[in-house]
């Protein structure tokens, strides 16, 4: 890894994002709109928004960053910029970490805005602090980036890349404990749930919801997410070949 190249590449990815105003607007507005939707859906049922809204603050960054990253990385492949980059002194990890950093920064902005709206406009109430929610959201976004980088290796077109979303994202949302508490799932479903990283993000968020200060479980969950990020990025580096047929 080379800090100069890593920094330059992170800045380049953010600059690309800045030129794409519509995507920036979508990044900021979509989670807020969806949160508002959930708020009004459960307006008459007290306590539900505090549960679902909170979990969604972690789910949205994951989903959106997964999608954006898999398309962005696929573009690097299809437009030939990836091949060109691999003929320069850039290392594979420079590129992968730059994506993680750049979209991590974007996720921080996104999570801060979504959380602000959730807490101060929609009255989200948690026992723990908003800072922890944002931290978990960023970790989850970076996980989405890492999985997106990995999955883009297995798709040749944007059509195929988008198809990975239902495969990678939806099962995690279904089994993370949001719809059915994990303890009430059939054993084999819980076993699957145990190996899906989103489960731990949701558990961490629920800890923030019910505990006033950060718990050991929360830090363990965050460590698991970060571990998954590192494993996924390593796998992504392995799929990134300098030489191709």
């Amino acid at each position, binding site marked *: 890894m080379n800090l*100069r*190249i890593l920094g*330059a*590449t992170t800045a*380049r990815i953010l*600059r*690309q994002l800045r*030129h*794409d105003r519509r995507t920036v607007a979508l990044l900021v507005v979509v989670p807020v709109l969806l949160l508002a939707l959930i708020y009004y859906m459960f307006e008459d049922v007290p306590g539900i928004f505090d549960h679902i809204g909170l979990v969604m603050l972690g789910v949205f960054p994951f989903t959106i960053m997964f999608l954006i990253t898999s398309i962005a990385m696929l573009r690097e492949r299809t*437009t*030939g*910029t990836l*091949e*060109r*980059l*691999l*003929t*320069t*002194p*850039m290392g594979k990890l420079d590129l992968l970490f730059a994506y993680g950093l750049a979209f991590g920064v974007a996720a921080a902005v996104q999570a801060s805005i979504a959380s602000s709206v959730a807490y101060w406009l929609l009255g989200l109430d948690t026992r723990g602090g908003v800072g922890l929610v944002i931290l978990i959201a960023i970790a989850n976004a970076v996980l989405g980036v890492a999985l997106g980088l990995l999955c883009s290796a297995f798709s040749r077109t944007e059509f195929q890349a988008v198809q990975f979303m239902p495969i990678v994202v939806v099962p995690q949302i279904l089994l993370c404990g949001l719809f059915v508490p994990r303890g009430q799932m059939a054993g084999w479903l819980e076993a699957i749930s145990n190996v899906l990283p989103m489960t731990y993000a949701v558990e961490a968020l629920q800890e923030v919801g019910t505990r006033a200060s950060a718990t050991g479980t929360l830090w363990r969950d965050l460590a698991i997410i970060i571990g998954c990020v590192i494993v996924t990025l390593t796998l992504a580096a392995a799929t990134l070949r*300098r*030489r*191709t*047929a």
Partner: protein
Amino acid sequence: MEPAIEVRDLVVERGRRRVLHSLSCSIPRGSVTGLLGPSGSGKTTLMRAIVGVQVVKSGTVTVLGMLAGSAPLRGMIGYLTQAPSVYADLTVRENARYFASLYKDVTSADADAAVADVGLADAAGQLVGDLSGGQRARASLACALVARPTVLILDEPTVGQDPVLRDDLWRRFRAMAAQGTTVLVSSHVMDEASRCDRLLLIREGRLIADDAPDAILAGTGTADLEAAFLHLIRAEQVVS
């Protein structure tokens, strides 16, 4: 002097098709070498093997005495892909400066100079996505020139450019070679061939000529390179 690029018995297969059949050639330092041949003849594959991004079945490629694709080479080689490989959602200047930042001791001033060198100074602030095809190709070329590489591999750099600009680019390639840069340029237009020091004619993955343009003309007894190419192909068919 040791050649800049040495290709020995290079065999490349893509899918089940053999694209390069035990190809050997060497490219002298500080020269402009033209790689000519029809579309599909293996030009791009050979260039990709030289920059070290092509999976090869057998044979060796060495560049400046090192195996193609080895890490120290990547700071010394510039590669222009056939399709412009620049970021459409960045400006010309941002693209050039980004590629400059990947190399040690290459500054934004160098990047701006490269943009001016390809005649895009006036369009430097425009998004690459808003440029014409020819301009986009030049933006891509600027990014290949930015680090002043010792070896420059250019895959069809002049396609779609206006004649004045093409002439200008060729002068620039010649000037770089005069300063010691080794330039390998592919083209499928024969009229550019006469501007090279040396020509590699390639057809169906085999080298059918490797000589100076004048020597090829003299050897085939033809007046222009198009005719020489035809002559060589026919001669080869007779042999096989």
